[in-house]
């Protein structure tokens, strides 16, 4: 049984370690730190933690302003819905356009929000951030990768959108051996019949589906794309050349996220059949996370079914 950990928890803990090593790191919150877990940083470094109140727009622009002073590196954290929509113009004009060295944690990505429903479920944040010039987008698979991504994002000079999730998910990467490479897809499983590409926690779904497919005699390659922008074009083209089709899966709308990004690369370089699994073009709803994932087809059964349709 794999160790379970929520990506938000890994994020909160990593920030504390980062804070010890790097005095320039400061953290901004808009009254959700106990949920996004930046409360851990608040408790460890109160003087470098800024509670901005329920005011996301001011928070983003203030962080951009602070980033202009003496190399300070703001990590700004709120729910992904607010980072990507409520404060969208601030992210665009105060952060991305002038390439400020501001890191944004979009917490509560996708469906899992503790049954909060559509208002709190970020279904299009990846699409929004990906379309923004100068922005980079990282969606980690597990707690190990969250930690590495936080360090990589902090080292990178420029805007980063890091998407974390609320619910507990299995830790699949080996902390002893895993190396995070900016912009490089991770080959989680070799395979020659079909390629399953996941991002974030749904790369685990791709792994689970590959195991079932193996029993059915289908050899599936599994690629995990953590850096949605800049995306690893080579790995996608290679998958298109070496396997018979691609299925993407993500805890995000089927429009404009991982599926959209992969589709753009394929259309440009090497058209093959692509099936996109994700949140259909609807707002979310309250309910048990797994039940909703099953309902919308983010399930092993549906991935297996989709692969069979694709291969037929």
């Amino acid at each position, binding site marked *: 049984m794999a160790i379970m950990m929520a990506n938000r928890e890994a994020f909160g803990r990593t920030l504390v370690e980062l804070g010890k090593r790097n005095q320039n790191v400061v953290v901004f919150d808009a009254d959700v730190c106990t949920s996004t877990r930046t409360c851990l940083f608040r408790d460890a470094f109160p003087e470098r933690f800024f509670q901005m109140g329920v005011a996301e727009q001011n928070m983003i622009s203030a962080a951009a302003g602070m*980033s202009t002073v003496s190399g300070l590196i703001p990590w700004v954290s709120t729910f992904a819905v607010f980072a990507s929509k409520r404060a969208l*113009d*601030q992210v665009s004009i105060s952060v991305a356009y002038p390439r400020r060295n501001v890191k944004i944690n979009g917490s509560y990505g996708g469906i899992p929000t503790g049954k909060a429903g559509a208002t709190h479920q970020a279904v299009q944040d990846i699409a929004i951030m990906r379309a923004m010039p100068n922005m980079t987008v990282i969606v980690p698979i597990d707690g190990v990768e969250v930690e590495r991504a936080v360090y990589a994002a902090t080292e990178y000079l420029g805007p980063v959108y890091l998407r974390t999730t609320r619910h507990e998910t299995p830790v699949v990467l080996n902390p002893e051996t895993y190396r995070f490479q900016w912009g490089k897809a991770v080959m989680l499983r070799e395979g020659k019949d079909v390629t399953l590409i996941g991002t974030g926690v749904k790369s685990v779904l791709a792994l689970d589906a590959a195991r079932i497919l193996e029993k059915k005699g289908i050899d599936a390659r599994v690629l995990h794309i953590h850096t949605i922008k800049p995306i690893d074009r080579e790995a996608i083209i290679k998958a298109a050349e070496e396997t018979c089709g691609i299925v993407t899966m993500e805890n995000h709308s089927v429009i404009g996220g991982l599926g959209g990004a992969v589709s753009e690369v394929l259309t440009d370089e090497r058209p093959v059949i692509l099936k996109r699994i994700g949140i259909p073009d609807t707002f979310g709803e309250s309910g048990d996370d797994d039940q909703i994932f099953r309902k919308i087809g983010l399930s092993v059964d549906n991935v297996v079914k989709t692969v069979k349709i694709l291969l037929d």
Partner: protein
Amino acid sequence: MAEIIQIDELVDLAKRIRRKLLVTVGRAECGHLGGSLSAVEVLTALYFHFLRIDPSKPEWEDRDRFVLSKGHNTPLYYTVLAFRGYFPVDWLDTYDCMDSRLQGHPDMTKTPGVDMTTGSLGQGISAALGMAMAGKLLHKNFRVFVMIGDGEFQEGQVWEAIMYAGAHRLNNLICVMDHNKLQLASIIEEGLPIGPVAPKWEAFGWKVIEIDGHDMEMVIDGLKRAIAYGKGPVAVVAHTLKGKGVSFMEQVVKWHSTPPSREEMLKALQELDAPEEELAEWRS
């Protein structure tokens, strides 16, 4: 040009800045004149009298900061920066042209001396707030000045920013409000009336100093008192006239961003006592 102490010199400089920003807009055939002309005295006083800056080192860490939150008034901003020595004055002739370092709204990645990219109203005051917070965190003595418009006062983000600054008593933050009573499409009274502004700032924990924004002596005195206050953030409410200095532009809504014709340029420059050599260009 270096720092200026004498008020009469500042008054004279303000007049030259008015003419140059008009010419910049006249040549580019675009640009926001009204709000540029209303803020001339304050920006002249800030850049030539108050700001601790070194134009040869625009990135100097301990410099005072200035953020033009009403970012559309670049004709004024760029003229002041050029006169102060951040870049050659002839750059102004590239204003708003393709590939220019002088964009329609301030771009800190392109223009030396611009401390923050602005243009989407409400964001600059938050950025200035963040700079002031950084100053406190790092125990630095620089001061942060920001200018907002009165139309901009309608943006919700402004209230988020001033609530934070007031609650945390940031005494290194001074906001000048260019209160010219007009917005893009109408006078403010007909757009969305903002009512009396002083009580609003005060309710959010700011000290308010009201001045005639075109009386250089009052501008200097008001900013001096704002800097000396020390107990929290200060709003300097500068009562001004949009289009100030050109009779046919003053308090006329259309001059928010309409470029003048050659005839109008000539008339405007004459009203501002332009010498003959500055007029020749506009005679048809």
